[in-house]
């Protein structure tokens, strides 16, 4: 079989599987990172809309501050209002506005406990008028994540669950499987070196742990700018650190 014929068979099969998976008529688009090195690992060339994505924080004392900022950057690049469900109100809005997420776009929902948080998060994901819905949880069971995924499919809203924890044991619990379309882990790295004393642009170790119908990968990126865009760390861009931009890994 020639290469072009096998390509067309493959694309037919992909379209067929996509129809089986969604069963909803309207087309799903995706939200690209704008970095080809990352986007090429994501089926559809970006984070899928109408899907639910999970972002795990690193195990440091920060308790997932980097993960929160990563989610804020994604939400900043979406259109429309953003609903932010949380159980611990410790977010500092000026930082979100520095990551491109203007204060008037974010509506905070302060939930009493994890249970009401999941209910509010699901309700938000069912609402088509939102740009993105973000939920900060400490654990997410398989059932809960499947519910969230189904809710996101009905509306076409991008759903982001940020898993933050205080203790290592909670981090272990979060390792369990979930129905999220992609799963990321963001941990802080020492900032970009500067020629003068000071703290440079923050850098993150960004791992794509799981991606449905895609490969996993890891990257070193510099944190969100004023429009919520990431950049690939200059070390990597110059090919000093790693030979390839995104190292492919075996699927986790």
């Amino acid at each position, binding site marked *: 079989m020639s290469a072009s014929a096998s390509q067309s068979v493959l694309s037919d099969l992909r379209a067929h599987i996509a129809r089986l998976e969604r069963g909803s008529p309207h087309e799903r688009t995706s939200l690209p990172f704008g970095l080809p090195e990352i986007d090429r690992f994501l089926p559809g060339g970006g984070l899928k809309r109408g899907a639910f994505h999970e972002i795990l924080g690193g195990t440091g004392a920060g308790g997932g501050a980097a993960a929160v*900022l990563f989610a804020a950057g994604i939400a900043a690049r979406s259109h429309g209002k953003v609903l932010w469900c949380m159980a611990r109100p410790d977010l500092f809005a000026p930082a979100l506005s520095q990551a491109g997420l203007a204060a008037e776009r974010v509506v905070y929902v302060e939930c009493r406990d994890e249970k009401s948080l999941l209910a509010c998060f699901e*309700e938000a994901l069912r609402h088509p008028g939102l740009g993105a819905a973000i939920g900060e949880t400490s654990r997410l069971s398989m059932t809960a994540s499947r519910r969230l995924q189904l809710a996101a499919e009905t509306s076409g809203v991008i759903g982001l669950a940020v898993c933050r924890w205080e203790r290592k044991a909670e981090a272990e619990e979060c390792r369990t499987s979930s129905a999220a379309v992609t799963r990321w882990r963001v941990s802080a790295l020492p900032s970009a070196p500067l020629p003068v004393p*000071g703290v440079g642009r923050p850098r993150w170790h960004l791992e794509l742990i799981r991606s449905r119908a895609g490969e996993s990968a890891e990257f070193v990126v510099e944190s969100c700018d004023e429009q919520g865009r990431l950049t690939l760390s200059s070390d990597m861009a110059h090919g000093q650190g790693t030979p390839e931009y995104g190292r492919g890994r075996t699927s986790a």
Partner: protein
Amino acid sequence: MGEAAPPPETPLILVGSEGSRRIVQATNQAALKAGLHTGMPASKAQALIQNLIVLKAQPDTDHAALDQLARWALRRYAPIVTTDPPDGLVVDATGATHLHGGESAMLCDMVRRLAESGIAARAALADTWGAAHAFARFQTDPILVLPPGQSAEALLPLPVAALRLPSEIVHGLHRLGLKSVGDLEHMPRAPLALRFGSQPGRRLDQAMNRACEPIHPIRLPEIAETRRAFTEPIAAAETIAHYIEKLVVDLCRMLETRGQGVRRLDLLCHRVDAQIASVRIGTAMPVREPKRLTRLLREKIELIDPGFGIELMCLSATCTESLEARQILSNLVAPPEAGIADLIDTLSNRIGAKRIYRMASVESDVPERSLTRVSPMSAETSRSWCISWPRPVHLLQPPEPIETMALLPDHPPVSFLWRGLRRKVRAADGPERIFGEWWTHDAEMQAVRDYFRVEDEAGERFWIYRAGDGEHAETGSQNWFLHGIFG
């Protein structure tokens, strides 16, 4: 009385006539402290205190004012409100506290708002009207919320006067040595009824939740209301949902002719046992869509206790705002931005309107004062924080003290100890000096905070500050704190 009102520190009494006697009907705090009390002859009070201000009581005006207050409470707090003359209001809080963030939050809000308009009020929430009446008047706490089922026990030590009995019965009971509600509770009923009639027993049963006491809520004639009576009482959830839909459609048609939209909607279900089960929903913007209102009400069906059946359902738009039909501007280029008001309504009826908010900037350099919560549907301002320095994603409230090793006043620490872990500082930015707001707080005349952004060897970034400039003791305690965590 406005300008002509006497100062609050002079004793003042209101005098009314009872038959041919003139007696004291109300006193102010100063008069109470001087030993006057209601029910004593006016001439005696005047003899006891010099330059006592005596005014004539106006029970009709008082009653009208109380009525006014009840209307305010109905619009603001709960669907079932009535007056409890001479000086009280009864509010059935069932099914309405969720809009105010819980029971105690609602009572606090009530007392605070009344205090702002110059009314010293006390509030209590208990199982029954009688119990709440007693706790509001005979307990020391100005705001008291009793958990369900504990009212009866808490009533026992209160004096018998708490039971809403006429004063002659109270005097009679005192003569017999029955001082507290507990004494009365342990007495056999028959001799008591022989002497005082059925009233003490009935009031006791009502307070103890053994006899029901329906509250007849005040209704406002001007509000839009639809009702539906049933020949056979209904109880099933599906039937209730069905009639909710019909009532909402009728009500929306009525509101359309008035050009109004709903902000507060009350559903009162009159049960066959003369009790009323009620729910209240609130919306962030005026709404007139039957579908949305039905959905909000349906979520509350589980809170309606039908008892032996509901014979009358009544839906009233207690609080409305004008809502005119308007033309939607269409734009061929940009797709219209869908509103999220309905989502906000659903969530605020579920977890409370105070828990849903947006952040807005406040002009202040002190980080924790630089933002405030505003309602999610409030008008959008283009004002934002104009800060050139990076700000942390998480702000610790309050800042946590840390132990540091610092070299010079202008230098960041070399290492610091936070939550039992020593971190070596690899790189740092700062200091960013923030001055106290001496124009609002006298204590901050010379206060200074020096903020540093530090990064440890693992790459985690923190926001730490020293209270003070490192040299002058009057600028602060010179202790170090961790205030935030960067992403």
